[in-house]
């Protein structure tokens, strides 16, 4: 049960780019069902860390344990299969495809029908596709209010909406662990409000663990249960939002920043 307490554990993770040390012996423990935020100035190594978790980068040392199972040796798509899904800082949607297809791709691993069945497109494969569409309509699309634009091609959508499609794609596989990489970056005020609302809803309604990276302190402080602060590839503080807010080290780093503006 102890393991189940910690949904994700990162043990002294290190990553180098040539000479540059992106991550230096980082340790993290994320409890199940909370919103865990990772903050820090640009280049602190936040994105590098999650890229390590989703195996886009292979860490040079340390290990990553998810649900008590080590996922360090896995390949990216296998990590995704474990139930970890993520959004991207600069949206990585498939721009040529429709919103619906993008979101469908999120559930790729839940679909069974192989190429041959697909070619014949009769019985199983057909049914599966229809079920998939109804599922998405019911669970994802109208929850994020994407139903009206589901047949639009992504490239034609405004930035804010694309962010939301990205989120939808990350949610569609019904993950247990959701990584959000700067979900409100570059959004205007009410877009930010919606996103905050969505995050909290996801946490409460869907009851999944959220790993948040964000610059916008307002969002962070409002949604997070626990916060870790990174600087120059090292974790320098961790704890409840209030605690972190008071931490002198953190204040020194964020000198000049006020916690209410990003």
């Amino acid at each position, binding site marked *: 049960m102890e393991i189940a307490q910690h949904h994700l554990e990162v043990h002294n993770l290190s990553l180098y780019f040539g000479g540059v040390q992106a991550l230096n012996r980082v340790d993290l423990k994320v409890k199940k069902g909370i919103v865990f935020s990772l903050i820090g100035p640009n280049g602190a190594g936040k*994105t590098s860390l999650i890229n390590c978790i989703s195996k886009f980068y292979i860490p040079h040392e340390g290990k990553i344990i998810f649900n008590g199972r080590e996922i360090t040796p896995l390949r990216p798509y296998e990590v995704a299969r474990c139930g970890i899904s993520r959004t*991207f*800082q*600069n949206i*990585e949607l498939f721009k040529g495809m429709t919103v619906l297809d993008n979101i469908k791709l999120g559930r790729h691993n839940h679909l069974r029908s192989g190429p041959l069945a697909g070619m014949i497109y009769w019985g199983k494969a057909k049914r599966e596709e229809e079920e998939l569409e109804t599922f998405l309509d019911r669970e994802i699309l109208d929850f994020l209010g994407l139903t009206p634009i589901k047949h639009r091609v992504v490239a034609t959508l405004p930035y804010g909406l694309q962010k939301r499609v990205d989120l939808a794609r990350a949610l569609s596989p019904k993950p247990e662990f959701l990584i959000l990489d700067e979900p409100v970056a570059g959004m205007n005020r009410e877009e930010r409000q919606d996103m905050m609302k969505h995050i909290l809803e996801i946490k409460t309604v869907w009851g999944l663990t959220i790993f948040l990276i964000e610059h916008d302190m307002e969002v962070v402080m409002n949604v997070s249960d626990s916060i870790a602060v990174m600087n120059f590839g090292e974790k320098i503080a961790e704890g409840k939002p209030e605690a972190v807010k008071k931490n002198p080290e953190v204040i020194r780093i964020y000198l000049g920043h006020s916690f209410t503006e990003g």
Partner: protein
Amino acid sequence: MELIVQVMIAGITIGSIYSLIAIGVVLIFKSSGVINFAQGSMAMIGAFIAYSFVTQLGVPIVFSLLITFLIAAAIGIVIERFVLRYLTGASLLSIIIVTLGITFIMDGGALAVWGSSNFTFPKLFPAFSLELGGIKVPSVYLWSFITAMVLLVIFLLFFKYSKMGLAMRASADNQKVAIALGISSRKVLSLTWIIASIVATGGGILLASISALHVNLSYIGLIVFPVIIIGGLDSIAGATVGGLIVGVLEAISGVYIAPHLGGAFQQVAAYLLLLIILMVKPYGLFGAKTIERL
């Protein structure tokens, strides 16, 4: 042993011509990220133009070479200005195929103008030949070898020190930024294509003067791909070395391996090596690895 020496020399001599063509391809790629399948056809066309000037119009060789180079430069500019400029930002694959299309146009043009029979190319070089280890190396081979080496040095210096060279590298690395920095990428591209097509023409002329002149000469455009892969797409030194490697490899396989495997193994040897290298070192021996980012 005497034979192996001769094989080596034979390989190096033909290899140096491969290098010449390959350098052109690499140049274009370095400065514009375009992979030019039409390089071989450029060589062929250049050779034909020179041929017509020398034999059909009776222009003295030096002048006809000059004119040929001018025309070649013009062709280069036309291709860059009227085709590839419209494709900036298009996917590499479609660019490759466009250059394939250009190949067809050029070959067709040559076919229409000169027909598809063998022509005797005028002797450009004093017909002395050097005795190297029992193999008579005709002057053209020496010339091609020297030309390749000289070009190599020139380009290396050019890219290292000259302002234009730096500009080219910059715009190859990131066109937008380069433009932002006030580098006229148009000028750069035009210049590259001029250089490339002139180099190709030179190679073509050398090639034509060692074998009969024929439309099929453009086949060399295919041989250079093992060369540039082995050498690495973006390295001129690599292209030169690669050319020599492929030349030698072909010679060796032609003499020692083909008898046992049978058939024209010489031809596929280069591609076999290409495949192996791609498996082991996906970016060639001298090529720079590109790092993917999110």
